[in-house]
């Protein structure tokens, strides 16, 4: 789904910035994306995407003196969102069954990972039983790792309210995973 051959001509200056970005951020971006998507084969493309977006905006070199790191990961977040969205619409459009063996990261299959995945799969279905806002808040806080106050700001609700939704979500999953209930 991602175009692997991108014959983009960079100016000498851009190429130098690109090299510096690559040296400085490649590893942490791979980790960032690796933790957030199951597509091992797209990780490199996503990292590349981040660098290209930064270069295209022409602001990378000027930002190198400032808070470049924050800007890089903000860009990474939007690359990730685009990537996940594309994946969903692609799958919805083609009605292809999702091939876990192909997309799911062949190199990450010790037993505990499989068990965890199975549980997560079931738990994802449980999340669907929650009201949409509660589910969203849980995902942003727990899966995306946002801070409670950031979730509150993003959704325009109070911190107390976010905390309440979180308690409901956690409690719901606990209940549903409890064999005694």
């Amino acid at each position: 789904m991602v175009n692997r051959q991108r014959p983009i001509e960079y100016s000498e200056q851009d190429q130098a910035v690109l090299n510096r970005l690559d040296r400085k951020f490649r590893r942490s971006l791979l980790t960032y994306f690796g933790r957030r998507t199951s597509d091992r084969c797209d990780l490199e493309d996503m990292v590349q995407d981040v660098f290209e977006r930064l270069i295209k905006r022409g602001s990378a070199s000027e930002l190198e003196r400032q808070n470049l790191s924050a800007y890089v990961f903000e860009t990474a977040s939007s690359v990730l969102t685009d990537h996940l969205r594309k994946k969903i619409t692609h799958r919805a459009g083609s009605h292809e069954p999702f091939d876990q063996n192909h997309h799911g990261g062949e190199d990450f299959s010790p037993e505990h990972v499989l068990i965890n995945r199975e549980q997560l799969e079931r738990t994802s279905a449980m999340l669907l039983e929650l009201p949409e806002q509660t589910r969203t808040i849980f995902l942003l806080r727990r899966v995306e790792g946002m801070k409670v106050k950031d979730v509150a700001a993003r959704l325009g609700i109070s911190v107390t309210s976010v905390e309440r939704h979180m308690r409901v979500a956690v409690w719901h999953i606990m209940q549903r995973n409890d064999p005694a209930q």
Partner: protein
Amino acid sequence: MTSSHMQPRNSPAQIEAAAWIMRVNDGPLTVADRAALEAWQAEAPANRAAFARAEATWHLFDDPRGVPALDALRVAAYALCGSAPHAKD
């Protein structure tokens, strides 16, 4: 929130445990908080069990990779908080 399983039933320990796991993960507990958590767990085996369950629930999401269903929910979540066009369904 209309379904009956969303309402507190007979498991106050689980409700409290859910509240505790949030506090534990939202920032370092004060010494007093830590003592309160330990005291609460010592009060009843059900409390200790509930907290263990809350911890397991929390850590279930430590590594969210490789679960397409979860990826789909994440996209929907981003859509709802305004970072991306709504891509659900």
